[in-house]
């Protein structure tokens, strides 16, 4: 007399009904096709290698301004930073002059700025023992800065002893500039 199958026996019985081909397939090793991912990674690595910079970024561009674009390829050096916006002139992170109509109406060096730059030059000379001729400044100017303000900053630098003034720009390739 055959007894009814218990619940325990049911899956086993079902298993026996599977075809042999399916059962054999369970032993096969499933492999992931990585070729397309390798392709993608290769493209990514080539792109990143192109934009790789071994020197790192030595200049922090202020959020308060938009630098102009230029095709100049001169490497930037670590110098005293002067940030010029339409609101203020900032030397080494410290606001020195707040720009108003009186600043924009004259064309001579700005005395406060000259004093600040002279102090910095003197301090640097004492600390590092270098001459004024070797001192340079980097001027970060907003694209909307007026020529008169830029010229006043540059002539202030010249009067304080910074003979060379560098304009900081964003480098673009040949036809990229509009």
């Amino acid at each position, binding site marked *: 007399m055959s007894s009814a199958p218990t619940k325990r026996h049911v899956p086993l019985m079902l298993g026996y009904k599977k075809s042999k081909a399916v059962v054999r397939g369970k032993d096969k090793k499933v*492999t992931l096709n*990585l*070729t397309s*991912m*390798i392709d993608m*990674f*290769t493209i*990514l*690595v080539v792109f*990143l*290698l192109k*934009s*790789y*910079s*071994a020197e*790192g*970024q030595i*200049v922090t*561009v202020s959020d308060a301004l*938009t*630098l*102009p*674009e*230029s*095709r*100049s*390829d*001169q*490497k*930037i*050096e670590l110098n005293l930073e002067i940030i010029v916006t339409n609101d203020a002139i900032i030397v080494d992170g410290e606001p020195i002059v707040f720009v108003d109509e009186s600043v*924009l109406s004259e*064309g*001579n*060096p700005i005395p406060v700025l000259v004093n600040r730059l002279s102090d910095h030059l003197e301090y640097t000379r004492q600390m590092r023992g270098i001459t004024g001729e070797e001192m340079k400044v*980097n001027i970060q*100017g*907003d*694209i*909307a*800065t*007026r*020529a*008169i303000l*830029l*010229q006043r900053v*540059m*002539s202030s630098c*010249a009067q304080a002893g910074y*003979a*060379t*003034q*560098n*304009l*900081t*720009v*964003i*480098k673009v390739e040949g036809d990229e*500039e*509009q």
Partner: protein
Amino acid sequence: MAQAATGRSHRVRHVPELDLLPVMNLFCVIIPFLLLSASFLEISIIEMSPTEGISSGAGTTSLAQSEEQQLQPKVIMTDEEMFLGTVFGTRSIGRAFMESRDGQMVISYDYEALSEALGGFRDELNVAFPTIPVHKITILTVDDVRYDNIVRAIDVCSEHGFDQPGLQVAAYNVLQRAIATGAGGGNP
């Protein structure tokens, strides 16, 4: 070895599978490293020649000026027009026009025409003064010319070998006088 009735061998060729996992491991290390050290914004500089203050209009020309200084051209930018002042005379490059930049209407100039004019001037210099290297150029503007216009003009100048730019700002009436008398060589 057993052969089929056709005589052809039924041996199955097994192509060896390439193990890509070590390559994947390498990529997983190298990509974060490159991402960290990549610089997507490249900063460069334009080295300016010593600048002069606002011209008083006195029109003094130093006797000690070198030959290069005397041949030094000037790009004159006013609110209405751009000029090129050279030792051969002052000529108009083109009128200023309004252009949209970043959603803002700003004054712009014809830089292609400036490039052509500077190219022509460079050729004339090479014929007339072949032994004198001229690299300096002055960007002479009125008070309210935008900084990006100045940088664009400097870029065009450096394309033609005038790679030592200086900035000079003058009052409008002084500029007009400089244009009228010919701005090439020395101060206006």
